[in-house]
């Protein structure tokens, strides 16, 4: 009797052990064909451009490489410009002109990485490399012989295909919308977050009028439904959106006259506030927080429903903002704490010069948080990226530019206009 129950327990333990072995063995299967939908974070936008080096350092590319896999994407050469290279006089007139107009380096027929700067779940569904909105329609006259003697017209509804922005043109080319591309790619693992631009507009426009929860819920749900319907996806990762009101683009401001609606968070480059439109006051910051809370709850719920890993970057970013991100090198070398800001002399930083997007170090941190969540969720052992290496080799951390010294630069206003305009 005792031996019988002992054998049963051992058998269960063996089954558990075998199951564990089987699960650990499927990292290779799950990352056989990773796919990406996303936005500027996934594409590697770096104030204010996308180019090969920034696409290579973007978080999905790093995670995939560490998992022993790869992604294919259309290489961009702009549009706009890399402000760091311009300020450091590494990009001259020819380089700037070429970058402003944009174009492609290497191209692929069907990219597995379809994340595009400026995208959100609505454009994941509706914006291709050819049409700003594949669902848009217009009425057109169609002439035909109504009878054998009567040539007339009728109104017919046709697709209204208007040229999209250059990021979509060069990033997707003729492969379709982001979700259509994934339906063709049939990925085994999906990087699936394109939520940030549903709320980033509040920081860039210092206004909450752009928030649209109904559209986010509708299009996020539809995107995930179509992802689920692909049938090939074995796993994936989503992440919650950090508090956009605490990015480096915004800084606190107190109105000298003490007016509550003129005080709050303003764009870092503004010297003063002349209108309530130019700040996010306390009530607006609270409204953004509420929107984020609902959005992030939806992301977590959807991730759980799909069996995805969910990285809680809202919590991670709050921690970095408060405590910094320790960077530790070999032999215990500690360059210091990286802050949620662009790098300053002797002060490592995670942001690029637009105060919105991560730099090379920021993407390494991003990737590691996703790796941690994937490993935890699936029991994998994907190695992390060395943040020390990323800090050491990141040109902006190696040779910081204090953007506040360039606010009288003629070009700076246009740089900001491009950053703001991308999300319009």
């Amino acid at each position, binding site marked *: 009797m005792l*031996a019988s129950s002992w*054998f049963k*327990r*051992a*058998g269960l*333990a063996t089954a558990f*052990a075998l199951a*564990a072995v089987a699960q650990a063995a499927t990292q290779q299967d799950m990352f056989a064909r990773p796919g990406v939908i996303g936005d500027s974070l996934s594409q590697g936008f770096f104030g204010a451009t996308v180019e*090969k*080096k920034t696409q*290579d350092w973007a978080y999905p590319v790093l995670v995939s490489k560490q998992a022993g896999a790869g992604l294919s994407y259309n290489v961009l050469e702009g549009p706009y410009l890399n402000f760091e290279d311009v300020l450091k*006089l590494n990009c*001259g*007139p*020819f380089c700037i*002109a*070429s970058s*402003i*107009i944009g*174009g492609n380096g290497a191209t692929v027929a069907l990219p597995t990485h379809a994340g595009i700067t400026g995208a959100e779940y*609505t454009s994941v569904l509706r914006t291709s490399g050819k049409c700003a*909105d594949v669902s848009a329609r217009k009425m057109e006259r169609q002439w035909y012989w109504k009878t054998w003697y009567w040539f007339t017209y009728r109104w017919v509804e046709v697709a209204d295909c208007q040229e999209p922005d250059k990021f979509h043109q060069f990033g997707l080319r003729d492969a379709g919308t982001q979700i259509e591309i994934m339906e063709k790619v049939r990925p085994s693992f999906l990087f699936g977050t394109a939520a940030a631009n549903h709320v980033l507009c509040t920081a*860039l*426009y210092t206004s909450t*009028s*752009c928030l649209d929860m109904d559209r986010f819920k509708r299009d996020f749900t539809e995107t995930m439904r179509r992802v689920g319907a692909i049938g090939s996806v074995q796993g994936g990762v989503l992440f919650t959106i950090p508090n956009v009101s*605490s990015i480096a683009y915004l*800084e606190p401001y107190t109105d000298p006259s003490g007016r509550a609606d003129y005080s709050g*968070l303003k764009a870092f480059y*503004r010297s003063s506030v*002349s209108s309530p439109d130019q700040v996010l006051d306390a009530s607006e*910051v609270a409204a953004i927080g509420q929107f984020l809370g609902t959005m992030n709850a939806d992301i977590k719920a959807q991730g759980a429903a799909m069996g995805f890993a969910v*990285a*809680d970057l809202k*919590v991670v970013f709050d*921690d970095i903002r*408060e405590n910094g991100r320790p960077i530790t*090198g070999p*032999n215990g070398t*500690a*360059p210091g704490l990286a802050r*949620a800001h662009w790098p300053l002399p002797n*002060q*490592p930083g995670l942001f690029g010069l637009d105060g919105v997007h991560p730099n090379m170090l920021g993407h390494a941190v991003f990737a590691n948080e996703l790796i*941690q969540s994937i490993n935890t969720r699936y029991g994998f052992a994907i190695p992390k990226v060395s943040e*020390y*290496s*990323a800090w*050491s*080799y990141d040109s902006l951390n*190696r040779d910081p530019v204090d953007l*506040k010294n360039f*606010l009288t630069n003629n*070009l*700076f*206003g246009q740089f*900001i*206009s491009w950053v*703001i305009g991308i999300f*319009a």
Partner: protein
Amino acid sequence: MKRRQVLGLCALLALAGLLLAYLGQGADPGPQDGAQAGARAVPEVGSPGSFFSAALGQVAPQAAPAPAQAPPPAQDDALRLWPHLRQGEPSAAHQAEVQAQWSRLAQQHPDNVYLPAQYQAPLTAQQARAARARLDDTTAVATRLAAQQHAQRYASPGQEPLEPPAAPANPAQQRQYFDDKIRELESRLQLLAFYLASGQPSASKRAIAAKDMEQWNKELEALRQARAAVPAS
């Protein structure tokens, strides 16, 4: 009975071995949940004790070695992750070529806004203040226009556009915006013409440039017409 015991023992040993291997990889703590994070009591942005409570530049810098003095990290892995590192730093020849290009552009178009500061007269304190005020005005208008466009981005066919607000924009601010935009667009067109004339762009770049320049010229004309309509006060 004995055989069963042996089989069970083998299974247990296998399990123990697997568990040891599994634990040896290091258990990563899962992401902190909201309750744990809340317990740390992250202050609101701008409140005392948060990073943004201090003005930029007033945060005490950490005593950290400059990257050049820190021990170099492993190169092989870095080159795998960040292939652009193979190119190395820009060479002296490259920087000399960049300077030569700027010099030629400055000779042709001395007022081009893309010229680096060293090719322009240094700003006096008054000019610097004026430049900051101009930046405030121009970005305020650009932000307002971008927000307007964003609000109407997904308008359905036939949906009426937003009505202009009852209170018109500040004429001086709007005029400043038009002046800056016109000057930047003119500079951009000069830059592109300079590039096309002597930068040896590829055929595909020429095609994109031609299309862009046509669009920018139309935009320039529209801006000049709108600028002319701004009231004097």
